[in-house]
């Protein structure tokens, strides 16, 4: 048996190469744009997270009366805002916060959406019916307005509460897709087989159906990530963003509502605008490549 055990380790790699995830990976490697985008995205993510460990947030959001609206200089690489606060530091922390929100929302919506869709699709029948009605109801809610209402209502407004509010109204699309897939999947014999083998339903759902949907989920989540990063900035722009001691890309962008800032002080908002633009593009490039990979007709590699 020892020999076999060793084999398991050795051969794991060799055989993994055929799985869905590896197809996704291959597609990205083959798509130069997607590869560059992925590297860029990971690079930015790692950079902001690492640098923000070094930066002192209190120091960055410290109001300095004698450095208001400084243009970029050696001290302030990207100048300062109307509170005399360093834009570069805010940009780093802001990007981190925006990415963090993007990730949290994406993962939370993913967990809720996948679970919901899986249960609904797997059990089908009456339960599915009821769950679909619930989903439809969430779908018809005026999302942006309710988010704004809740943002205004929540007394303590933080990245966490914000993410939860967003999640509450964003899980439906994933749930719908997953449910449709699960409905197809449940008819396959391997699911029936597992039932006859005495595997409990939850184990079948998460242990058997879920892995078969993994590449699909990765694709959806990647594409959602791009959208979620953008959402926060929109809300901040409308004036429902974070307090200024929690900088985000959206807060920086919202300074552009001031016409002087928009016209004369590009350093405040332009880097954030470009960064959002690039982040969204790169995530989307990766997402599109992954999407191609799951659709054999369009596959390149």
């Amino acid at each position: 048996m020892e020999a076999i055990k060793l084999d398991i380790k050795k051969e794991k790699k060799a055989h993994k190469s055929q799985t869905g995830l590896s197809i996704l990976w291959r597609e990205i490697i083959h798509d130069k744009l997607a590869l560059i985008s992925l590297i860029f995205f990971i690079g930015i993510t790692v950079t902001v997270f690492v640098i923000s460990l070094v930066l002192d947030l209190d120091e960055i959001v410290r109001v300095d009366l004698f450095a208001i609206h400084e243009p970029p200089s050696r001290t302030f690489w990207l100048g300062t805002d109307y509170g005399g606060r360093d834009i570069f530091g805010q940009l780093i922390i802001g990007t981190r916060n925006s990415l963090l929100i993007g990730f949290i929302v994406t993962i939370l919506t993913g967990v809720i959406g996948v679970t919901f869709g899986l249960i609904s699709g797997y059990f089908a029948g009456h339960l599915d019916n009821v769950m679909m009605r619930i989903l439809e109801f969430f779908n018809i809610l005026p999302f942006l307005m309710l988010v704004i209402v809740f943002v205004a209502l929540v007394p303590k407004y933080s990245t966490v509460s914000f993410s939860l509010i967003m999640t509450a109204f964003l899980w439906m699309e994933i749930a719908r897709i997953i449910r449709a897939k699960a409905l197809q999947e449940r008819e396959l014999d391997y699911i029936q087989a597992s039932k006859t083998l005495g595997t409990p339903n939850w184990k079948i759902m998460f242990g058997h159906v879920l892995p078969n949907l993994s590449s699909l989920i990765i694709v959806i989540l990647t594409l959602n990530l791009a959208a979620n990063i953008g959402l926060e900035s929109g809300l901040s722009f409308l004036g429902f963003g974070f307090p200024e001691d929690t900088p985000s890309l959206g807060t920086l962008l919202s300074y552009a509502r001031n016409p002087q800032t928009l016209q004369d002080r590009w350093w405040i908002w332009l880097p954030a605008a470009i960064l959002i633009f690039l982040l969204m593009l790169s995530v989307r490039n990766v997402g599109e490549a992954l999407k191609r990979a799951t659709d054999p007709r369009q596959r390149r590699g």
Partner: protein
Amino acid sequence: MKKFSLTKLLLAMMFIFLFVLGGCGGNDAEETQGEEDPQVEDSEGKVDEEVDDDGIYSIDDFDPIASNQGEIIDGGTITFGLVLDTAFEGALNYNFYTGNPDVQVIRWFNEPMLSIDEDFNYTQDGAATFEVDEEEGSITFTIRDNVNWHDGEPVTAEDWAYAYEVVGHPDYDGTRYSQQLSSVEGMPAYKAGETDTITGIEIIDEKTIKLTYEQFTPSLLSSGVWAYPLPKHIFEDIPIEDMPASDAVRVNPIGYGPFKVESIVPGESVTFVKNEDYWRGEPNLDGVTLRVINPTVVAQALQSGEVDIVSSFPADQYPDHADMSNVEFLGAIDNAYTYIGFKFGKWDADAGEVAPDPDAKMADVNLRRAMWYAVDNNAIGERFYNGLRWNATTLIPPSHKNYHDDSIEAPTYDPAEAERILDEAGYIDVNGDGYREDPDGNELVINFASMSGGDIAEPLANYYIQSWDQVGLKVELVDGRLVEFNTFYDRIENDDPDIDIYQGAWGVGSDVDPSGLYGRNAVFNYTRFASEENDKLIADGLSKEAFDVSYRQEVYKEWQELMVEQIPVFPTLYRAILVPVNNRVVNYAIPEVPGIDIHRHELGVTQEEPFVAGE
């Protein structure tokens, strides 16, 4: 009478208007929730504004009256920009409006019956003249014969009385029922629905009305009278509760002012044509177009000549546009101040007075004084507002030049002094966390409420927190974010226990009497501060003796000193109003400045088209 609490309270409100600091969001859009009786402006130095090297300006360099002396052409129209980032509400009647934006509209087609001089006192130059009977405590008003509503009907004494009957009616649910009305004899009983008639109002003939007051105070003759008749022939068929939403208020509003409303796009714009029968004479201009203009685009609209005059100009945009070639910036000292308030207790609704709590967190005057020493308001004024706001010293702003006492030594930025005071008072960091504990050694966290709105609001609040942090006081923002205006005042007014200190702003009415803001019976005494010395001085200021101006000045000088000593609040900044006016406009004066003998019918232009800023 003296049915104290309620009456006194109303009295208190008389000369106050609640100031809304950046109330409707956007750029310091200041909203006065009250009547627009402004203050005097000393503007001897008619120096053209000069840009200092460091980009710091002084209000002394501005003039409230347009300097253009050019020749006025016949007719012409101008565009007035109402600076607002929302729509105006559109309750276009003095008796029904709620917010300042509507007043900006009303002023073009209506005006109060009485005009005031630069000392805030009523003059005999208005649409009505008056005679005072101090003995009886009554005033008799006579409306001029040629004062007619826009539809040709004369403005009558009955119209004037009708305003009292409507606003004072129990069914009236607007916000205009103030001290100006309730101080009239019999008004409270009428408001309570106990009587159908108001004993203090007597219509003598078609153009003459006599108002009798329960208590005759010096305040009465400086805008203490509700002087806004309501055309009875138009309103009498409308149930009172439907009036605010009626067409007579919103669609075809009517007045007796220099211009008539021609058309209204709700919330957006109003066009006016001249009222040829205006009692002061036919206006020069053919008409005026008023439109809402977003604070973010004011400068561009001015540059392109899209608007000739705007209601206000965001101070933070001024440095970038100070040299705009086609406009002249008018300026005046605003009769308002911002302040930091300390919570002392609660409002006792049953007793109708404040109930200070001697154990309140902020009860120690040394702590308050130290906090005053810790902040650098001069720097704030210069850096955030380019000198267009500046360090405030007393609770009567310099716009009241006869009462403001600039000899008083108020604490100014001195962190070392702040630390010394705190050390002495026993606020010492005993547990070594970098923050001071209270004299009993308990952890001291001061919760600071500040409202959102103005552009600078957020860094300003953070700056204060930092300043206090620097002297070892731990101050935290309530909820971790700025509080929206309505919520802010809701919480302050309801004495939310989570709030220890707050930043607010007050507009001071034309009368200096502070009883409405700092009196024992004032709901607006948000700090819930009270002291016997304070009670006495406030009462003295309203006594018969106070009809003697020098006596009154002395009383309020003492009161200002008392406030600097006891510090229920400390004032932070005084502020300037800036109004840019196109160079073709003649005879325009900042309307908030009283006693300037220029009226809107004299407004004119020197050329058909506005000047456009040269590239």
